[in-house]
């Protein structure tokens, strides 16, 4: 054991001491420069250096590099050390290379040669060093060179255990770099049988490799299930003395147990009753052990034990088939909720969130509501409180919604700033989802604005307006409530917006009361006017002109405001224009015209809350391909478009139909006053910019796909509707005289929940109605699709809802097929459609700045990482429409990146279970030639190609 500091290399120790003694940064730099000069001269000198000296200098260079200084020489000497026969020299050489040399270094050829020599060495220590180096660098070239060698080493009877351990993980690393080196055929069973290895260390390493292989090819590696179960069973039934070296604080092999339990989560519950029984026994034993008195008071003991327990609970939740175990798990977690260890309380809340989603344990979870509410109020660590919020959200249903929403509102008053926005959205969603009484919903949202106005995003207040407009029963109440809220001495600007909009539409409903007469309403609103930002003022101007129509008796007062200097000469062009136009309108138009132009807003089409989409947005990522700048966790301005970007293909005669996410058209770039003046006939007009629909879905819901008749088992060409779905998640996939199929989907990381709505348009029942999903080619290994069965009878005029849960395992190009068979009037009907499940759906927009974008771009310089297409524009080259499509595609539109402002630059991360692929996208329009050049770079060649294919068809 080394007792001496820096034993063996005195010069190094002296140098490190010198650096530590430096009083200032300058002194340190001076000392380093001196050392660099010294080492350089040694390396250049005539005297050949011996291995020890080389090792020492290379090690010093490494130290200097680790201090944060650039090193531009010494690489060759490090590579020389690799061919030394001495362990210590070789080790330093390999270390220097793993830390400092990038994959495309010119010395790589030499390095690979040295690794080759060491791999075939008879000294296992040299083999091991070489394997560790490959595992640390894991470049493509290494994968190509060693991909076929390492499996042999791994399963050979001559290989010693220590080397096997490294070989297993080395192979894992190379698989991550290059997935086509997967060993298959005869290797499969030999690798799977490593789970039976005598040496626990070998099993510990190998289980990681097997887990990765299973994720790529679950069927081929199915054999691991029974082996994993029996290994696990042997461990959990062992006493802590049985496993000696692998017992950690009286817990037998906790890490291996945890890994085996994770491995099993790749599969549904075992089919073989024997295996299944044994697994359930294991899980029961683990739950039982949690109730036994601890064998040690040390936290290490309880942590190790609970690491296994939590993993077992994850597996129980994953299997979702053993009600008894689920309820036991829930009770165990319930105990942890009150444990003195913060870690356990946190993990219990997190795990219970998942339990709340299982039908077997949802009720059991609800018993803990009070404890969770207490946690929300008393926990010191904000991340624990955050988990409590998540759990309340997950356990909420119709029975407890009012209570939970009430508690969340209470907590919001004192909540941490970091979680307020998310809480606001969660409250808004719960209130909407479980509202049986919409006056309650309106109260909740107004309370949200009152308590946490700054954190109420636009989506939230847009939504309350949508709902009020669509529900006649709540309009009077809403008008009354916003009017009262406005009377508070301090009133959030968001409240002014909501009040302005609602009074403009429904102020007449409360005008009968003297206390809220037209004049009072107007004065109250106008008393806030000068305190508000231009956007809000623009909205209020619209309210005023709507008042002209609602309340002719105050027309003159309003006209006076409109023509005041502060409005008609306002420096904001939008305010100026609105004032002028509204003034003219109120002066010239007859009351009939006014009544038509300023009519109440028509109801919004019903659809899923757009707030949900926002909630699903995630934190900025960290990945090799694309890295977002930190802290910029802001919403892109038009996030709402994510759910319903209109795809202008449907309105080809309206090419300039700009899609705006802006409720009232109050963003300064829009110059049309946005009054509801659109007579029905004009909806196809090119100037239809009048935002009939706030959230950008276009006019007719039946604009969907091909209308080909169904015959016997035809594949319906739904190419056009598929194309439309590339940029949106919801809409009509197919429609003919019998059947309409709608889609609603939600994406989160690599997961998707897709709802299919089958509507029977006829006056007769559909019998034997069976929709089924199939995966062409090898798509099933890439997309894991689970389908919930549906009723086989669809009544006349009824709609059937089917849920698909999809997990993206790796990137894919084929689309799953939906085959629907049913009997209509004694005639068998069958049709097959392609489902719009494209790889871009799993993309997460990534914000980054110019510098990081171009660094990434340059790093992805391997020709296969790039895909490019130059093509003629199919659609008008309208910038807004292009942007909307890009955003709808699921990538972040980055501005100010490209020196040429005409170019579009975007970034996103594609989530798959196995890996995250960063993608960078440049679209360069050439308006003169009516051409585009599309270039995509990503860390995976197949992804670049597929994205390029999908994206180019859109423009």
């Amino acid at each position: 054991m080394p007792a001496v500091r820096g034993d063996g290399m005195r010069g190094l120790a002296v140098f490190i001491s010198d650096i530590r003694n430096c009083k200032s940064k300058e002194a340190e730099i001076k000392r380093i420069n001196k050392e660099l000069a010294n080492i350089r001269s040694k390396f250049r000198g005539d005297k050949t250096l011996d291995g020890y000296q080389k090792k020492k200098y290379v090690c010093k260079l490494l130290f200097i590099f680790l201090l944060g200084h650039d090193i531009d020489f010494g690489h060759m000497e490090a590579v020389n050390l690799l061919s030394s026969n001495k362990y210590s020299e070789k080790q330093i050489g390999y270390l220097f290379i793993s830390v400092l040399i990038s994959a495309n270094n010119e010395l790589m050829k030499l390095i690979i040669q040295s690794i080759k020599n060491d791999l075939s060495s008879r000294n296992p220590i040299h083999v091991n060093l070489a394997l560790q180096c490959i595992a640390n660098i894991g470049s493509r070239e290494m994968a190509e060179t060693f991909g076929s060698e390492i499996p042999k080493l791994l399963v050979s009877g001559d290989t010693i255990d220590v080397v096997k351990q490294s070989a297993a993980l080395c192979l894992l690393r190379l698989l991550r770099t290059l997935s086509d080196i997967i060993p298959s055929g005869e290797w499969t069973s030999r690798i799977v049988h490593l789970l039976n290895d005598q040496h626990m260390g070998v099993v510990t390493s190998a289980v990681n490799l097997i887990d990765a292989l299973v994720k790529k090819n679950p069927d081929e590696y199915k054999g691991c299930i029974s082996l994993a179960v029996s290994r696990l069973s042997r461990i959990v039934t062992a006493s802590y003395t049985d496993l000696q070296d692998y017992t950690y604080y009286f817990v037998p092999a906790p890490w291996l147990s945890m890994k085996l339990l994770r491995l099993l989560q790749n599969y549904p519950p075992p089919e073989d009753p024997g295996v299944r029984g044994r697994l359930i026994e294991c899980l029961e034993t683990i739950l039982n052990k949690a109730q036994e008195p601890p064998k040690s008071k040390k936290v290490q003991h309880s942590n190790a034990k609970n690491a296994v327990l939590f993993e077992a609970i994850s597996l129980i939740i994953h299997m979702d088939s053993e009600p008894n175990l689920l309820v036991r798990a829930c009770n165990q977690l319930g105990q942890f909720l009150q444990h003195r260890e913060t870690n356990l309380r946190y993990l219990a809340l997190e795990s219970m969130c998942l339990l709340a989603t299982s039908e077997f344990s949802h009720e059991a979870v609800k018993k803990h509501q009070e404890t969770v509410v207490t946690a929300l109020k008393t926990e010191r660590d904000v991340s624990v409180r955050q988990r409590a919020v998540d759990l309340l959200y997950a356990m909420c249903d119709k029975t407890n919604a009012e209570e939970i929403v009430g508690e969340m509102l209470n907590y919001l008053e004192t909540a941490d700033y970091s979680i307020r926005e998310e809480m606001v959205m969660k409250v808004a969603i719960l209130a909407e989802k479980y509202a049986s009484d919409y006056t309650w919903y309106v109260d909740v949202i107004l309370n949200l604005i009152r308590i946490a106005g700054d954190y109420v995003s636009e989506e939230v207040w847009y939504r309350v307006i949508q709902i009020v407009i669509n529900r006649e029963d709540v309009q009077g109440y809403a008008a009354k409530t916003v009017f009262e809220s406005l009377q508070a001495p301090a009133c959030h600007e968001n409240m002014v917006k909501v009040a302005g909009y609602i009074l403009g539409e429904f102020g007449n409903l409360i005008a009968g009361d003297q206390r809220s007469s037209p004049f009072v309403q107007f004065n109250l609103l106008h008393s806030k006017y000068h305190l508000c930002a231009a956007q809000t003022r623009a909205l209020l101007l619209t309210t005023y002109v709507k008042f002209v129509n609602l309340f002719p008796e105050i027309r003159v007062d309003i006209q006076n405001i409109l023509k005041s200097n502060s409005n008609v000469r306002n420096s904001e062009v939008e305010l100026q224009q609105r004032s002028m136009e509204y003034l003219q309108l109120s002066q010239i138009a007859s009351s009939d015209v006014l009544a038509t132009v300023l009519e109440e807003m028509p109801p919004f089409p019903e659809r899923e809350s757009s707030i949900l989409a926002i909630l699903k947005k995630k934190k900025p990522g960290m990945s090799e391909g694309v890295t977002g700048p930190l802290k910029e966790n802001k919403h892109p301005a038009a996030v709402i478009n994510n759910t319903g970007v209109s795809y202008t293909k449907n309105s080809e005669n309206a090419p300039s139909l700009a899609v705006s996410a802006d409720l009232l058209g109050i963003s300064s770039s829009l110059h049309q006053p946005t009054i509801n003046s659109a007579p029905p006939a004009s909806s196809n007009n090119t100037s239809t910019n009048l935002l009939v629909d706030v959230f950008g879905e276009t006019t007719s819901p039946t604009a969907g796909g091909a209308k080909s008749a169904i015959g016997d088992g035809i594949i319906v060409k739904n190419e056009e509707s598929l194309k439309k779905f590339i940029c949106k998640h919801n809409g009509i996939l197919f429609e003919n005289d019998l059947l309409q199929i709608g889609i609603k989907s939600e994406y989160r990381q690599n997961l998707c929940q897709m709802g299919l709505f089958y509507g029977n348009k006829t006056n007769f029942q559909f019998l034997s109605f069976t929709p089924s999903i199939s995966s062409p080619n090898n798509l099933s290994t890439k997309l894991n699709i689970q389908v919930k069965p549906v009723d086989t009878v669809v009544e006349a005029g009824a709609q059937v809802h089917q849920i698909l849960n999809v997990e993206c395992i790796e990137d894919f190009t084929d689309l799953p097929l939906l085959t629907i068979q049913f009997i209509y009037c004694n005639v068998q009907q069958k049709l097959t459609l392609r489902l719009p499940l494209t790889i871009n759906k799993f993309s997460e927009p990534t914000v980054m700045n110019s510098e990081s974008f171009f660094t990434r771009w340059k790093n992805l310089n391997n020709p296969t990482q790039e895909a490019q297409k130059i093509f003629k524009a199919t659609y008008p080259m309208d910038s807004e429409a292009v942007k909307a499509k890009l955003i709808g595609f699921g990538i972040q539109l980055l501005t100010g990146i490209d020196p040429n402002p005409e170019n579009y630059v975007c970034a996103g991360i594609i989530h798959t279970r196995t890996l995250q692929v960063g993608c960078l996208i440049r679209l360069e329009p050439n308006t003169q030639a009516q051409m585009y050049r599309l270039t995509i770079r990503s860390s995976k060649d197949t992804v670049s190609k597929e994205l390029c294919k999908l994206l180019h068809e859109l423009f």
Partner: protein
Amino acid sequence: MIRFILIQNRAGKTRLAKWYMNFDDDEKQKLIEEVHAVVTVRDAKHTNFVEFRNFKIIYRRYAGLYFCICVDISDNNLAYLEAIHNFVEVLNEYFHNVCELDLVFNFYKVYSVVDEMFLAGEIRETSQTKVLKQLLVYNSLE
């Protein structure tokens, strides 16, 4: 999987940085600073876990040193928390009561310890006896 392992002191000086993803140098520096900022503000009553971008940091403080492991969100928190402790116990045995200075002067040996216990972002060996035996063999070699 483990994305990186960091050992930092309270002042933010890095005592070990082991990366299992290919970050460029600027990004590494950024991550180091960010981890420091996230971890040092937490007190003993807080959990040993922090969400970090779309990953999480599992950390434990030993005297003036923070041992941090960045793993995937779905990874098992307690298993990695104990993996840190297991690693620290090995260091402690190997360096006879390890202190920060041991890590500074023997930085190149610390990398060997790491590679014995973790490889390719996964746990390679958990038995302290086995790891120490192997390290002893290395020490006995020239």
